[in-house]
């Protein structure tokens, strides 16, 4: 069977014979999904068995990742997963209205998130809890959204982390605009004496799913970023499913190959390999800082839980698939690597686990004690400027509520 790469870019001048060699629908699907490893072109630096693979192109981007730094990435992932599991459990106990799990996507999120510099900006979708963590957003600050007390709480400027976006694809154009602004303000292409980007050069990263790649906003984001050379890294987490719809419902072509049609590089990385995600994202960000952006990264990964706590994946997903992906767990491969090379012993792993448990316990306590927002919050911050009309609506409603208190009814 030809690999997807062989048939997706027929050279001009190829005649009807080439047409006849077009793959069947089944081959297209196989080309997208067969490859539980992500296909021939996937960039991988750490195998599921925990073996380090040398990469002439990308090793230099992780030359600083010594055993201690790798232990740090491991710790990040364990904490993020533990918090994710805790939030999932709290939803089941009725403490959260809904939870959007990231189980299995820890490497994609921690790897890409740790590649960012403080001056960079990240535009998340709604599942980027791991990226939020790497941007210094307290996990607790995410909970308000899912407990439905708030739409977004954190200080986006201080953290370089935009509010979550639920409408699929919207944030991609917003990120393109932000990156255009970075460019217009001269924050890219300022090299130092050695030809490296200056320490103040900036870039933007935007996160979206495989399903999102079908939205007009995402295509428009590709066009805008390309024609303005915006310093924008498109980071697509291909977790194989958009609720019940598999990736082949969105594309006949591996997603990273789309970039070529828009005129910028696309690359597929093993999304369960934290080192590869870190290295490739650093490379892409550097391209952006040099003024060569944008870049599309497709992190080939798998979400080992439901789409959200309201979803029922047994209706559309085979449990075999989950079993296959468990063998490629992003955390396990780092653990094996650390252990096998004598970089960490059991006592250290135990210590990280108890740190994670404490992290989760703290989160739980915070969640249980979260105050209810007062009714006047309904009317607050609709406009940046004062709104006498809304103030009147608020006052009228509050006095209506006060009537119940007087009557001893509420």
């Amino acid at each position: 069977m030809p690999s997807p790469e062989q048939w997706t870019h027929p050279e001009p001048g190829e005649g009807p014979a080439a047409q006849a060699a077009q793959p069947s629908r089944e081959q297209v699907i196989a080309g997208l999904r067969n490859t539980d490893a992500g296909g021939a072109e996937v960039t991988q630096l750490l195998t599921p068995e925990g073996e380090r693979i040398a990469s002439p192109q990308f090793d230099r981007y992780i030359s600083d990742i010594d055993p201690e730094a790798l232990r740090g990435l491991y710790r990040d992932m364990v904490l993020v997963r533990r918090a994710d599991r805790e939030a999932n459990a709290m939803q089941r106990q009725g403490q959260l209205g809904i939870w959007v799990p990231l189980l299995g996507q820890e490497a994609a999120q921690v790897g890409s998130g740790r590649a960012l510099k403080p001056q960079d900006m990240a535009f998340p979708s709604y599942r980027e809890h791991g990226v939020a963590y790497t941007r210094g957003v307290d996990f607790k600050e995410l909970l308000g959204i899912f407990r439905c007390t708030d739409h977004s709480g954190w200080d986006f400027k201080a953290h370089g982390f935009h509010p979550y976006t639920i409408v699929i694809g919207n944030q991609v154009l917003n990120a393109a605009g932000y990156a255009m602004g970075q460019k217009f303000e001269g924050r890219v292409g300022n090299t130092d004496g050695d030809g490296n980007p200056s320490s103040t050069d900036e870039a933007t990263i935007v996160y979206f799913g495989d399903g999102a790649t079908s939205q007009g906003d995402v295509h428009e984001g590709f066009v805008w970023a390309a024609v303005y050379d915006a310093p924008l890294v498109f980071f697509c987490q291909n977790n194989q499913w958009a609720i019940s719809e598999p990736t082949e419902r969105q594309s006949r072509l591996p997603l990273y190959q789309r970039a070529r049609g828009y005129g910028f590089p696309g690359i597929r990385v093993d999304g369960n390999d934290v080192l590869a995600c870190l290295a490739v994202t650093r490379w892409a960000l550097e391209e952006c800082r040099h003024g060569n952006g944008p870049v599309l990264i497709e992190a080939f990964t798998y979400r080992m839980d439901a789409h959200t706590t309201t979803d029922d994946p047994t209706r559309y997903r085979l449990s075999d698939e989950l079993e296959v992906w468990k063998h490629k767990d992003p955390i396990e491969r780092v653990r094996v690597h650390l252990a096998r090379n004598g970089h960490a012993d059991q006592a250290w792993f135990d210590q990280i686990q108890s740190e994670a448990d404490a992290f989760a316990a703290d989160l739980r306590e915070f969640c249980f004690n979260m105050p209810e927002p007062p009714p006047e919050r309904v009317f607050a911050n609709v406009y940046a400027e004062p709104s006498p009309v809304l103030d009147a609506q608020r006052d009228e409603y509050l006095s209506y509520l006060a009537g119940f208190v007087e009557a001893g009814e509420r």
Partner: protein
Amino acid sequence: MAAPVQSRVDSAAPTAQKLTIGKALNMGLRAAMEADDKVVILGEDVGKLGGVFRITDGLQKDFGEQRVLDTPLAESGIIGTAVGLAVRGFRPVCEIQFEGFIFPGFDQISSQLAKLHYRTQGKIKVPVVVRVPFGGGIGAVEHHSESPESLFAHIPGLKVVSCSNPTDAYWMIQQAIACDDPVLFFEPKRLYHNGQLKSEVDTSQPAGPLFASRVVRQGTDCTLVAYGPSVKVCLDAAAAAADEGRSLEVIDLRTISPLDLGPVFESVRRTGRLVAVSEASAESSVTSEIAARVQQECFYSLEAPVLRATGFDTPYPPSKLEEHFLPDLDRVLHTVDRAMGW
């Protein structure tokens, strides 16, 4: 109407069953698909999953992947291709997953769906139904609880309806599909699986024409007019008011565009008072339109100005606060009190 809806009924089918609104919609869609093989359903997750609310449950299994399409994730794509399918002779029924996600498709709805018939002087018909679960009260996150129907009612060329009970759900969806004009079909999502509303659906008899409002409870002191999820609130309010000796008439609008205000005018001429209820924000909304027209038609019958119990003029709040935002029984009765005390 393309074909009389009544002729579609399988005479062997049972004539009365107890259904929820959600199940009634499912059966209505099934009946429409059986009656006309040009009816196709398209949307996100409508196939294997049966839609996130399971309204299309089992339809792909029985009608196949070319009649029930799990589409790529793009609302402009869903509406835009539905327009093309309709031009080709199909009768597409689009499902928008939640009302807050209709806006990527707004361009196609307002620029093409609503206007093709007019632009081509009637040469092109676009019998597309866009099903939109709408409204709050389900404790959801952002974009999952909105009431954007007024935005569509404002666009000439579209018809906009909403159902509030199982019988209407079963029949109105079929009537909307049979309609040669584009219909935006707003479904009260918080009532989909509400067991209290379960009722017998007579599948042999449509409950009335699609574009007509209806008195659903008679009363003499004040009229309440509502549609979709607010109809239940009004009926509950009328029941509570009756305990205190006050008689409220309730009208289910059913059709939002064209607005059928005849029964409302008649009612107001008897009761002298009108309270319009809706979850949508008040400014420039369906209830604004009702107030304007009733004041114009019934000026001399009115004992009080038309009052409204609606969502506030704010974005939909975080859902821990939605009980404040949504007009509930108390707020409806409070507004009735104000009308009565004028």
